[in-house]
């Protein structure tokens, strides 16, 4: 027991580890905040860089960057309407309107505190229930992934501000873009236009940088003459009462974040979108309407994406399976240092598990500290003249895209999507559903084919599986309910029931 405690506190007591975690978190926040620079890229570079270091030192730095980066994306999402990281796509929905009303400081403060809450919940769930949650993740059959992806896509209904038809079109467009590349089963090219470069598909981060970064920058050109909004930076730290008020929501969304983060292949980005949708459905009286600066719309995605970090560590530490792209690289780091991630890791090297838990907690503490620092500076940054800001953003987007795979082709695609996104924006299309379609479309496609081939290409067997497995049953019911919920059918039912209950 004392062993466990000593490992938990290792990161807190050793000055070098303390410093490395702090450094990592600080760097991570800024890497995440800059659109185009990604945590995955930073961590991959670090794996080689820290090869000769002690494994604990390397892990401490990487953990810091991971936690900092997931949060950091919210900064640019709030201030510029450009998510710095895929996990912050949903943060911009209410974060940017808040900034437009001059409350950027408060928004950043709230998102910092909420990220820490989510991170701590995620870490606690990791520490207490890791093997259990790991087992839960294993229960997900291909058909369950298909259902989860379907549920995710149905979120379009709530994410589409304004015309639902435009939202559905955007999601469909995203799904088609996601199809580009090699067919996972037959290795035939799909929509590759005969180009070898496209055989690898269009990375959704490229799509995101183009649609959110470049398109937004072009869109801002319409408002060059609008007065710069002075940001209120005196009230940054949310009052304790405010945190308590949002606590039930933040706990719920953190749990959503952990569960979604645990599923291999699905990470913080989907968790944030699902949490946002959950908030929209469950919060009856938001402080402001969703999409116009509701605090709840900021709380939900930020807690979820930070909690998903803890969730992603669960399959990595208990099974050696990555929960998302960053943990995949961390597994590589462990292997390179001679450790074998897998079920035996907890048995042979339990200190890695407890050390990671302690380290995650420490990183969250540093997140609180560094997150609340420099807000004034950042908020003022947005008051920079647009003539300087917009070109700067464009340069960062280009550099960031190139840094993913050193591919100029991807830069051109990104710029192309930027132009397309700008045109779509002018006509009132939302960018959010496009990304949703691009991430979930391929997931649905792959899972469906896996489920079908598992069932021997027999639809009856597949349907049987949907109703016999309890997990699949719950998920299928959810899909049906959400679908019906968006139709007039449910409203008719409700209106029929309520006069009856009013009379009775």
């Amino acid at each position, binding site marked *: 027991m004392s062993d466990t405690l000593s490992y938990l506190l290792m990161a807190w007591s050793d000055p070098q580890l303390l410093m490395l975690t702090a450094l990592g978190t600080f760097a991570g926040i800024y890497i995440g905040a800059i659109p185009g620079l990604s945590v*995955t890229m930073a961590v*991959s570079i670090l*794996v*080689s860089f820290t*090869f*000769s270091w002690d494994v604990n030192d390397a892990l401490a730095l990487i953990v810091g960057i991971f936690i900092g980066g997931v949060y950091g994306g919210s900064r640019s999402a709030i201030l510029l309407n450009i998510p710095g990281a895929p996990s912050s796509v949903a943060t911009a929905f209410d974060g940017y309107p808040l900034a437009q009303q001059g409350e950027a400081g408060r928004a950043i403060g709230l998102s910092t505190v909420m990220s820490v809450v989510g991170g701590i919940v995620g870490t606690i769930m990791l520490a207490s229930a890791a093997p259990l949650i790991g087992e839960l*993740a*294993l*229960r*997900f*059959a*291909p058909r369950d992934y298909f259902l989860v992806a379907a549920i995710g896509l149905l979120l379009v209904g709530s994410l589409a501000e304004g015309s639902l038809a435009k939202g559905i079109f955007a999601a469909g467009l995203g799904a088609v873009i996601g199809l580009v*590349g*090699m067919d*996972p*089963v*037959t*290795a035939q090219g799909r929509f590759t236009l005969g180009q*070898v*470069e496209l*055989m*690898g*598909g269009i990375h959704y981060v490229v799509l995101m940088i183009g649609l959110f970064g470049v398109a937004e920058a072009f869109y801002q050109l319409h408002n060059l003459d609008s007065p710069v909004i002075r940001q209120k930076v005196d009230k940054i730290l949310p009052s304790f009462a405010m945190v308590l008020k949002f606590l039930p929501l933040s706990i719920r969304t953190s749990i959503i974040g952990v569960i979604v983060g645990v599923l*291999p*292949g699905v990470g913080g980005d989907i968790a944030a979108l699902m949490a946002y949708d959950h908030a929209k459905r469950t919060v009856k009286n938001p402080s402001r309407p969703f999409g116009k600066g509701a605090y709840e719309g900021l709380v939900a995605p930020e807690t979820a994406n930070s909690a998903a970090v803890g969730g992603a560590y669960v*399959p990595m530490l208990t*099974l*050696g*399976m*990555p929960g998302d*792209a960053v943990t*995949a*690289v*961390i*597994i*590589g780091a462990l*292997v*390179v240092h*001679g450790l*074998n*991630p*897998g*079920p*035996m*890791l907890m*048995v042979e090297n339990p200190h890695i598990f407890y050390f990671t838990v302690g380290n995650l907690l420490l990183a969250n503490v540093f997140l609180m500290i560094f997150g609340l620092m420099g807000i004034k500076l950042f908020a003022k940054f947005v008051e920079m003249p647009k003539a300087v800001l917009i070109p700067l953003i464009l340069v960062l987007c280009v550099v960031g895209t190139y840094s993913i*795979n*050193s*591919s100029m082709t991807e830069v051109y695609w990104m710029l192309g999507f930027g132009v397309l996104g700008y045109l779509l924006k002018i006509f009132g299309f939302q960018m959010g559903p496009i990304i949703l379609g691009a991430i979930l479309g391929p997931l649905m496609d*792959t899972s469906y*084919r*896996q489920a079908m*081939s*598992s069932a*021997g290409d027999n639809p009856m067997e597949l349907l049987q599986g949907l109703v016999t497995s309890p997990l699949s049953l719950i998920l299928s019911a959810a899909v049906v309910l959400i679908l019906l919920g968006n139709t007039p059918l449910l409203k008719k039912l409700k209106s029929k029931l309520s006069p009856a209950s009013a009379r009775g």
Partner: protein
Amino acid sequence: MFKSLLTGAALGLSALTMALPAHAEYPERSIQAVIPWGAGGATDNVMRSLTPYVEKELGGKFILNNRPGGTAVIGSTHVMQQRPNGYTVLLGAENPQLYKVLKLADFDYADFYPVNIIGQNVVVIAANADAPFNNMAELMAAAKANPDTLRMGSTGAGGLPSTVSAMINAVDELKVREVTFGGDGPGITALMGKHIDFMPLSLAAARELVRSGKLKALAVFATEETPELPGVEPITKSLPAIAEYLPWGPFWGAFVHKDTPDDVKQKLVDAYAKAVANPEFQGFLKNFGAQSLNLNGAEAEEFLKRWQSVTTWSMYKAKAIEISPDSVGIAKP
């Protein structure tokens, strides 16, 4: 006039220095190493572990870059398109040898120069710990009793599981449902969750799970037991006919463009040979469950040819591919 003569001489000399071959003292600048697979995968892990040792021997810096996509087509094509000056190296796995027969691309490793064939991995046929079969014979019997019912995890055309299953089908019958995953990672997760029944895996991927009892190893794809998995029978016990295809396994290697200057090639070959032989790296390979090969020159080319020939012909025999290997210039083993 003297002035113009002097400027002319200065310009001429500088032009001359620029024209001097870049390998005056190779490596003069950092070398781009392209890994055509994603970060965190087996190939990526092996290469990231090896590169620091190569850097020490060569005296230069490598910049590792992941360029995944298209079963390594994208990364390999990229290296082929770069200048053959030894500043771009391909750190890949066995997949390019199958490009011609799978029509994924029109080149293979014969169009590269093999600097080093680093090592090869042993393949294990793994099943869930609670599966009703305990060895290869029982699996084959179960498959024959219920053809097209058992589910095998696969990683797509050209991946390890489909190649292994093709070789098994070339000597016997194994009719199963192939469920395709994006890599052995998701496949292993599905195997543990009992969503598939078995999957051929590289030892590196499966070892920890077999050791901890989460997965069962039905057989090793070799002629004799492997010391890493004591008690697991070699596949030749139930399928003696498969011995003609063995030894076989997915391999890793470092390659450069064929037209790279000979002295650059030699420097790379020497550096890699020493790095792979380094006892620390050997220890890493062993820990990883892989077998060290450390081949270069004629031996490497021989290895590549044999691997390609054995694999493609067995796939053709098992009707896993439609194109006859000799139509693309691959001789019979």
